[in-house]
């Protein structure tokens, strides 16, 4: 017994000394980043570069960890930079087919390591938003989009008066950070999740007066 204590005691001292030196914030960040590097590997189209945060990710998580909203000026800069990345519809047409849009909004497929690279992605919109009232299985992380166009007074999407709403909605789908620096919404156009045609279909789902969303 005595012998055991003799052997354990130095080990305990070493252990406690280790406890005293709990690493500080930046060191912990590095530890976590290093751990991520050794805990994951490329598989199919899901490559390790997906774990690298961009500047906005870094600023937003730093604010989150500190428990404060992000600095106003930093938020402005992030939004301005993201606004510039938005690609507007090449033919000036904002709306596609709402029926195709509903299918895209329902689909959560694509971009995992088990999906074939280049296969068509879904928008997974219902994961966070209520859209068509008929669909009762929806998430609530995002605001309800039921009556999206109607509530914003879009009765004729071709009318010049509707243009600002059309542009805002397109931009928000393409790159949500252009309007909210730390938005959690996936940047569907910017990150190549949805292509231009698919974004048009989603636009129609939200803004076409004939879409069930606006009934």
């Amino acid at each position, binding site marked *: 017994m005595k012998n055991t204590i003799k052997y354990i005691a130095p080990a305990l001292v070493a252990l406690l000394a280790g406890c005293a030196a709990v690493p500080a914030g930046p060191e912990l960040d590095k530890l976590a980043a290093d751990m*991520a590097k050794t*805990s*994951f590997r490329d598989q199919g189209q899901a490559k390790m570069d997906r774990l690298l945060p961009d500047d906005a990710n870094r600023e937003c998580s730093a604010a989150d960890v500190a428990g404060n909203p992000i600095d106003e000026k930093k938020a402005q800069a992030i939004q301005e930079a993201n606004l510039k990345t938005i690609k507007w519809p090449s033919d000036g047409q904002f709306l596609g087919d709402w029926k195709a849009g509903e299918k895209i909004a329902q689909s959560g497929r694509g971009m995992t*390591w088990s999906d074939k690279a280049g296969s068509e992605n879904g928008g997974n919109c219902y994961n966070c938003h209520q859209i068509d009232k008929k669909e009762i299985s929806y*998430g609530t992380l995002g605001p309800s989009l039921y009556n999206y166009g109607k509530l914003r007074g879009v009765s004729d999407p071709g009318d010049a008066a509707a243009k600002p709403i059309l542009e805002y909605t397109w931009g928000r789908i393409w790159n949500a950070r252009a309007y909210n620096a730390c938005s959690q919404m996936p940047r569907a156009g910017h990150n190549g999740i949805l292509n231009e045609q698919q974004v048009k279909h989603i636009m129609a789902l939200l803004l076409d007066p004939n879409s069930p969303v606006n009934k």
Partner: protein
Amino acid sequence: MWSMQLRLNDCYRQQRFPYPLFGSDATIALGVYMGVNGKGGESIAPALKR
């Protein structure tokens, strides 16, 4: 019944993550974190529809 490692594997897949190595530090740390914090909790499934 799936092990926690298999559940985390599919969880990361659906998050579009790269592939988590079985028994890796990150998956074990996360499993322990959830185990400690979830201890005594009651299952309320299905808590989320989507």
